[in-house]
């Protein structure tokens, strides 16, 4: 279809879709009128049943923990997919033997000012502490594994931006990153399966629940949150490493 024909075709369909939406939303409950049983029931019982004050994470890692297992593996599969897409190809290696060094090392020094360098290095420390704090307090306050993991994964990027390409290279090539990612993902499945050994169903909370409000409370919620944090950190660092290598190599070292 030509571009014009496609636009007109779509605008007609969009008008139809808008009409269908308008007709459907007439019967929707108005804003602020939440009546459904799920939210009401779970906010009453979650704190008592699981000693977790953050009900959203209690749902995510306990009541509906199986969904989060699937979601974690969606992330894992995506990272695998990106690694697969950017894998070193045999033909590429034959073409650019002299490029192979660049594929391995991101050695350019970014020209950054001293102020930036110092303040970025301070930022890295703050980000790591903050990331660990958010990931560890998932069961108490908003946060949790995913959020903390993303913050932690940004720390190496800040290292790179502060001009320390070598340190960045060393951090992201460490085998610990892959171990964190796969370990976090497999660990979640194993924690779930561990419940089977105690005669309970998959992903039951079998660890003692502790006192509400404590750092080490709510049983497997805290454990799963930490595992997810590990996996997300590992995954995002791998993604960043792959993208940066690809883009720098593809542009022949130009920034």
């Amino acid at each position, binding site marked *: 279809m030509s571009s014009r024909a496609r636009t007109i075709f*779509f*605008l007609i369909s969009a008008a139809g879709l808008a009409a269908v939406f308008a007709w459907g*939303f007439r019967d929707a409950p108005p*804003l602020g009128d939440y009546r459904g049983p799920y*939210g009401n029931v*779970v906010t009453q019982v979650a704190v008592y049943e699981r000693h977790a004050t953050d009900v*959203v994470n209690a749902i*995510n890692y306990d009541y509906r923990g199986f969904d989060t297992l699937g979601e974690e593996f969606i*992330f894992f599969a995506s990272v695998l997919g990106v690694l697969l897409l*950017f894998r070193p190809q045999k033909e590429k290696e034959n073409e650019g033997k002299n490029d192979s060094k660049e594929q391995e090392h991101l050695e350019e020094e970014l020209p950054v000012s001293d102020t930036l360098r110092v303040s970025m290095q301070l930022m890295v420390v703050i980000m790591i502490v903050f990331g660990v704090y958010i990931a560890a307090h998932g069961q108490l306050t908003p946060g949790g594994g995913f959020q903390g993991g993303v913050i932690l994964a940004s720390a190496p990027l800040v290292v790179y931006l502060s001009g320390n390409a070598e340190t960045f290279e060393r951090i992201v090539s460490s085998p610990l990153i892959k171990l964190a990612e796969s370990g976090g993902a497999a660990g979640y499945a194993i924690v779930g399966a561990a419940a089977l050994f105690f005669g309970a169903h998959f992903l039951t909370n079998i660890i003692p629940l502790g006192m509400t409000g404590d750092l080490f409370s709510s049983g497997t919620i805290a454990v799963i949150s930490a595992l997810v944090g590990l996996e997300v950190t590992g995954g995002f660092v791998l993604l960043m490493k792959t993208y940066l290598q690809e883009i720098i190599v593809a542009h022949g070292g130009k920034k």
Partner: protein
Amino acid sequence: MLNYLTYIVAAWIFLWGLYGIVTSKNLVHQVVCAAVLQTSTYVLLLGIGFKVGGTAPIFADIPVGTSVVDPLVQALMLTDIVVEATVMALLLSMVVKSNEVAGTVDPEELRVLTG
């Protein structure tokens, strides 16, 4: 009418996202339009869970029993955001690789598979 504003906004963003995807001339732009499309579902979900006078469902400093908004839609949204971010990452890497191999990101010029 104000009562249904979330639904109208959600539908509006949805249709604009679709428009962007259909009329796009650049694959990166297309992927970002798909991300915009996704935000319409966030608006819808959050609007559904809202309770007038409700506060955040975190009982760290409020007693159990205070009126809070629905936590389930927030949990659904977290899952949704992760799914979206990862799918966008995968699609964008396909675009980057496609640019490397074929030299273009214009869908019109990339039409290798037809008929």
